[in-house]
């Protein structure tokens, strides 16, 4: 298939079948992008940090990036347009009569199944990120990297749950720990 068409259709599908904010799009992005070989999981996780540190929403950021990396400006346009179009069409139609939509028992029924689905799906995405972070080389443990990751996870949890600091602060701190460990020769 034409690469631009493939990018457009894939991101159209992602936009159409992701419901909810935040990281709700991550499970589907992960599955589709890995299946197409457009990025590795490690690159996706790196990019989440970039996305958290730049303006704009994750969905648009990652679509633009995958498109640009795969097929330049036309690719970036196809992905971003594709991920946006389903929302645009659906909301344009609904904006007129959304009271009926909100009150619909069918919509409520579907949503009652989708909310827990999204929780389970993000849980699965998190599971694969945990594997990439702690066991990047399969079952062969790199003690330095494992230790650094564990330290960062514990510190980030403490900071984020004690004080509501911005994610960028946590990312910068984690970067500093990674760099220090690297130059101390701990990362092998």
């Amino acid at each position, binding site marked *: 298939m034409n690469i631009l068409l493939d990018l457009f259709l894939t991101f159209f599908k992602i936009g159409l079948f992701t419901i909810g904010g935040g990281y709700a799009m991550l499970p589907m992005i992960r599955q589709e992008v890995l299946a197409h070989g457009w990025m590795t999981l490690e690159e996706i996780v790196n990019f989440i940090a970039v996305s*958290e540190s730049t303006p704009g929403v994750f969905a648009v950021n990652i679509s633009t990036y995958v498109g640009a990396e795969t097929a330049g400006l036309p690719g970036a346009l196809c992905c971003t347009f594709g991920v946006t179009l389903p929302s645009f069409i659906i*909301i344009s139609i609904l904006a007129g009569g959304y009271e009926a939509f909100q009150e619909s028992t069918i919509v409520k029924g579907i949503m009652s199944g989708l909310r827990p689905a999204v929780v389970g799906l993000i849980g699965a995405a998190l599971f694969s990120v945990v594997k990439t972070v702690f066991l990047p080389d399969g079952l062969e443990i790199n003690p330095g990297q494992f230790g650094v990751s564990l330290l960062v996870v514990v510190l980030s949890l403490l900071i984020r749950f004690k004080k509501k600091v911005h994610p960028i602060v946590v990312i910068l701190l984690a970067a*500093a720990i990674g760099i220090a460990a690297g130059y101390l020769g701990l990362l092998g």
Partner: protein
Amino acid sequence: MAVMENENRVWKLFVTFFKIGAFTFGGGYAMIPLIKEEVVTKQHWLEDQDILDIIAIAESTPGPIAVNTATFVGKKTAGMAGAAAATGGVILPAFIIIYCLSFVLRQFEELAVVKYAFVGIRAAVLVLIFQGLLSMYKACPKGKMEYLLMAFAFVVTAFFDVNILIVILVCALTGLLVNGRKQS
């Protein structure tokens, strides 16, 4: 005269949502206060209640919250042209920034210092995703069906890499069969 006014509104929508897109870090929910400030307090296009409706709609329709909200506000304020202007506006800053970054990011990732930094950063991202998961879990109603669907979605995706489309369709259908016919 009315045409002039509408054109003016469309342009204003674009500028307003461009600003919102350019100054929000981290996603749709972070945008809501800014959207309220611009759209309700400053421009008087919509009222507080509209914003609450928009959030409810944005959460129960496909797509990113930010895009849904922009399209909705644009459509309500100035029709289809408004919807296009607001949506384009909210996307454009991220698009430009990430497109420019894409030229340097790959080379940048090759540097030793950046590689070291990302070892730490990936662990921090794990925590951010975990927090996202936690807040979604808290917001989700809980009952037998909900726990079953959560477990189902988790297990088949994490251990069997089942196509997510199928998981979503099965869960939507289950919800519909269990709760779709109840009179509320």
